[in-house]
């Protein structure tokens, strides 16, 4: 298998990209993704479940809201639309379709839209929906036609178009064959223009029979053997969200490697997880709040003329070792992009602590080389059976030094309702080089006695829980977006977040009860206090840290007056305005932004 050799297409232009950011995908190149929610608004959707469970409409709105907010965080450039069908009233661009209500046309989701969807949730949401749209006749054909107009009205280049139908009616037209046919035709037209149609069918009494109508509407599955439809209809928000989430994220390969096992096998490389970060700030022009863009120019200090890259060279470190730019590239070049198989090792040889960066997933690219999937499937099966992983040398792109990876087989897993929870493929675990491993001086201690260990076992058993990788939200990012949301919507204070990674100390204490003291008695002598030393240290640090001092948000009077004069007071944030009110001794009962502004203007006019 000389060469899991690769012919590699680099889709990203930026070759200078940091190695660590390898997993970040450059979306600029490929155009925008789009997603249309087409939601049934007929009466049946509003029927609440027994025991007061939320209606199908309600869980759909919750789901739409969560997609909106997650898009805002993870891919705000994507376009999203929300369209209702089976409504009483109509609202669409040319008002040419009856019973179709375009609630949001295709656009980037923003704060306002999140609020709009939020308003449609729950009891009150149902009333609002009844008032604004009502429920009426159903024509899925018209609805699909209207959606195709939404797509064609977009002037941007769309790379991925998806439409999701949410309904609990397996025969939306009650058996009207003309309407059924029209819907099928329109669905066909949409599919022809590259729109992928998914059905998110919801629970209904008597069960949802996909074969009655919808099997002809939805897009054929990527994989022909499978029906492409979730066999079971969705009853729970969790399930629905999972399904929508899985579908709405367009898979993007970070790299396509024509790997060769002495023969051509094509695989795509996908990120399993990418550290989500707070987005970087953008600069706005103070006067108008419009975004500005930056340009970086390189010029000669003496002559002031612009320097082209060919007129510069590279120097390393303090001592001037000069290299030409292309020499710097040559030094980084070892192999052409490829995955080169070294051999196999038993699974137990993969060490837990040998971790240097998040893994990636390999999946065959049958469209590039026919037969790839078969080789891949065979390797996957055999590696799983024999409990081995493959050691490979991995060169993801040109002028990129190699890393070694362990390819660990991962079999497909599906849940009760046949939704894929784990995709099939090889996880590529990055292996450390000698440089990455630090030498430690390991202290040696007596090991704990059985009694001590057993007591700890009791503690552990009391604190058992089922870990799920998607259970922890990042409080830093969530807080950031809550803050932005509050500012964008002129809310008084940001919605509070729940810090999921904070230990629930009280609950833990209650659960453990006397076990803690019993354990301490077994391991610590009476005089020993594990908190003493570091605690003392921490206190002094705290006192000197000055963290308690809040940064001053005071604004000079002159600046404030200038803002009032120019009518730009609104650009100041609520906390700044509040501080300004305090500063000038204004007592405000109101806390709304406008009220604060009015109070300030009134005060300054005195």
């Amino acid at each position, binding site marked *: 298998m000389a060469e899991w050799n690769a012919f590699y297409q680099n889709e990203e232009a930026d070759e200078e990209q940091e190695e660590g950011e390898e997993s970040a995908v450059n979306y600029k190149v*490929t155009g925008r993704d789009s997603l249309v929610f087409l939601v049934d608004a007929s009466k049946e959707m509003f029927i609440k479940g027994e025991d007061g469970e939320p209606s199908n409409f309600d869980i759909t709105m919750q789901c739409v809201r969560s997609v909106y907010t997650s898009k805002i965080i993870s891919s705000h450039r994507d376009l999203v639309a929300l369209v209702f069908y089976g409504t009483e009233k109509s609202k669409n661009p040319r008002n040419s379709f009856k019973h179709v209500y375009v609630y949001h046309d295709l656009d980037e989701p923003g704060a306002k839209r999140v609020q709009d969807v939020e308003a449609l949730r729950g009891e009150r949401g149902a009333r609002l929906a009844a008032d604004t749209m009502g429920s009426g006749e159903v024509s899925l054909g018209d609805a699909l036609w209207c959606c195709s107009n939404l797509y064609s009205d977009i002037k941007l*280049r769309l790379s991925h178009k998806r439409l999701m139908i949410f309904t609990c009616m397996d025969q939306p037209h009650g058996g009207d064959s003309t309407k059924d046919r029209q819907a099928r035709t329109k669905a066909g037209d949409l599919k022809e223009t590259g729109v992928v149609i998914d059905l998110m069918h919801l629970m209904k009494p008597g069960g949802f029979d996909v074969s009655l109508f919808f099997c002809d509407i939805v897009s054929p599955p990527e994989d022909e053997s499978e029906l492409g439809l979730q066999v079971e209809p969705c009853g729970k928000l969790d399930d629905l969200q999972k399904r929508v989430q899985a579908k709405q994220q367009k898979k993007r390969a970070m790299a396509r490697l024509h790997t060769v096992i002495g023969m051509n096998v094509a695989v795509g490389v996908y990120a399993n997880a990418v*550290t989500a970060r707070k987005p970087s700030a953008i600069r706005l022009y103070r006067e108008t709040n419009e975004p500005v863009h930056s*340009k970086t120019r390189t*010029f000669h*200090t003496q002559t002031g003329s612009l320097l082209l890259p060919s007129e510069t060279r590279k120097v390393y470190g303090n001592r001037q070792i000069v290299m030409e730019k292309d020499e710097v590239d040559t030094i980084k070049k070892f192999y052409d992009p490829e995955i080169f198989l070294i051999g196999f090792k038993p699974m137990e040889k993969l060490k837990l602590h040998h971790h240097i960066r998040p893994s990636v997933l390999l999946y065959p690219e049958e469209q590039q080389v026919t037969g790839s999937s078969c080789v891949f499937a065979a390797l996957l099966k055999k590696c799983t059976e024999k409990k081995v992983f493959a050691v490979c040398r991995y060169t993801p792109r040109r002028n990129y030094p190699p890393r070694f990876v362990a390819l660990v087989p991962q079999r497909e897993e599906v849940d009760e309702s046949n939704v894929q929870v784990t995709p099939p*493929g090889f996880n590529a675990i990055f292996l450390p*080089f000698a440089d990455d491993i630090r030498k430690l001086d390991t202290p040696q201690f007596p090991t704990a006695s059985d009694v001590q260990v057993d007591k*700890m076992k009791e503690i552990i058993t009391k604190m058992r829980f089922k870990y799920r990788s998607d259970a922890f939200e990042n409080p830093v990012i969530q807080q950031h977006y809550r803050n932005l949301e509050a500012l964008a919507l002129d809310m008084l204070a940001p919605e509070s977040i729940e810090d999921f990674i904070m*230990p629930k100390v009280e609950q833990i204490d209650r659960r453990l009860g006397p076990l803690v003291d019993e354990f301490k008695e077994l391991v610590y002598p009476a005089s020993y206090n594990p908190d003493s030393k570091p605690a003392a240290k921490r206190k002094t640090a705290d006192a000197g840290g000055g963290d308690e001092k809040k940064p001053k948000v005071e604004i000079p009077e002159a600046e404030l007056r200038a803002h009032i004069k120019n009518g730009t007071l609104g650009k100041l944030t609520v906390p700044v305005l509040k501080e300004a009110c305090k500063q000038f001794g204004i007592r405000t009962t109101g806390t709304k932004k406008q009220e604060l502004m009015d109070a300030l203007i009134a005060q300054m006019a005195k």
Partner: protein
Amino acid sequence: GKREKMARAAKSALVLCMDVGFSMSNSPPGEEPPFDQAKKVIQKFVQRQVFSESKDEMALVLFGTDATKNPLDQDGQYQHITVRRQLMAPDFELLEEIENHVRPESQQTDWLDALVVSMDLLQKGKYDRLNIVLLTDLSTQVSSDNLDVIIGNLGKLGITLQFFFPFPMEEEEHNEEGGGGDGDGDRRGSSRPGVGKGLSREQKQGLEMVRDIMLSLDEDEGLDQVYTFSEAIEQLFMFKHIERRPMAWPCQLTIGSSLSIRIVGYKAVTDEKLKKMWITVDAQTSKRDDVKRETVYCLDDDNETEVQKDDTIQGFRYGSDIVPFSKVDQEQMKYKHDGKCFAVLGFTKHDSIHRHLFMGSQTIKMFAPKDDEHAGVALSALIQALDKLNMVAIVRYAYDRRCNPQVGAAFPCIKQTYECLVYVQLPFMEDLRQFSFPSLENKKFTPSESQLAAVDSLIDSMMLVEEDENGQKEDMYKVHEIPNPAFQRLFQCLHHRAVNPGTPLPTMEQWLKDALERPSAISERCQAPLEEMKRKFPLKAVEKKKELKTGAQIFEPDAKKSKVDEEEEEFNLAKISEGNVTSVRARGLCQQLTHRIEQLLSNRSTHYYMKCITCIQTFREQSVKLGNADLYNSYLQSLKKSIPNSGLQVFWDLLVQGMISLFIGEEKKEVETEPAVDDAGDVDDLVSVCLNSSALKYLMFVS
């Protein structure tokens, strides 16, 4: 606090003590003399230190030298030992000195004397670690007088000793994993060359003495610090041994409000990056100060009006909204936490943590503090209990107040000589990419029995871990023993350029090339199964279908075209277009030109961008000459449109920069005398194309 600062300030000291005597230059024909190998070893030592800008100090002692230069030189004692360099931070001068002045000499010196001179050097100054590295072939008669005193002093001063010989100390003794200090005790491969046969009497006697010294310094692992020259050239672990230890992170592991255990964390594995960056300098003067980078802010209007940085404020995107959000407000409203923390959220089954969802770029090992036995026992109880229950702790980890908190798993880790917790970061919900892929359990892809059999035998033939005669598992390819080739290659090239300026870069060292290849034994064994695989699995590359030409794809690389000699073709095109050409021909030429530009652009490298700019400049000049600006303008128009989608912003910026001088330059007069060239209609086009204030001014003047 204070303690950490002290730890950071402490330096270690190392004496490189190398035998350059007569016998070191002797070698059987065809083999590299020990001297050359030893010199490479010390060069590698020094290289690593210099390029990582280590503050640790180094001295160089040579013995077997013709001259004598050392502080102990008295009454005819300690002769032919030269202190080439006193303890100081290693620098390029040291590299140059080794390259040019360390050469074979003709004396023979007692290596024990050289060791004493080296020890003497280490007595000065304050260091947290003292190391001596001794490289010799042991060919000299040694006087064992005072050996006890020497050993006593080595121990008393806490000096770590490493020996390097051209031959292995003894027959390979098996070194099973788990014994080493960092948990990677399986560090030695089986590739020791040249078994210790045919050693001279002096050498055998020398080895005995080395064994005495090393075992009395460290009964258990002393002999681990004896290496061969070739090991030292190809592997890193001996360097690691003398390197400074990672910084301690003292904290408390807490379970609920009232159970805490004092712990200390150390980075055990981390994605190591180079410390230094490449800096851009002026090509002529090689001076950094001659190059200035400046960032300007522009409005998104047609003129790209520049605004001062002071006139800008900070904002963030919230979906389609842009929210002004000052640094001060951001600081005030951001998520805050209590700082340093290692708090258990709960415990969960080991197998519910997926290896492929490990996040971050490091693993941290948590121990009890060295002097705290009670913490040691408490932590041991936790580690043992987790291990027995096959569970892990899920913890909240925060390095300090400035760093964002993480969620992670603490795994129990039990080795022969120590126990610890291994901490790895786990993903947040926001980090996950929940893709679904078509099932491979598909009739179309299901491999046949014979196909599976082919894969089976391929895997068997390529197993890197095998049992030897003694039933011991032997791993013949340990990635964690390979030095990072990127560093090795860079150091090699930097070293070369530093000591041989003006000469081309060397090729990659053979040992490094070999280290990155499949072991030859495996390559041989897998030949036949591989052939079988090829027969059993038909594969066919899919012809690329003609896809719709979209903005992005215009610039897709096309493999067939790229082999033409660009320079020449470019020249020719310019030449052809110089003659008198009709407008019909101009159109054809224009097509050739734009085609050429697209080809060049597809290479996505600045080198080619510059060529493109020349092409476009030529295009413009020719258009001006021909009095036909339509083609040029519409081409530039479409090029501009495609920029955002093709990831060629860098190129466009360069082009815009390049065009400034073009417009203001000599062309001005030319166009003035030929006002017919740009008629009014074209001017608008051009203005929107060259979003550039100076171009705009000029063109308005023309019209």
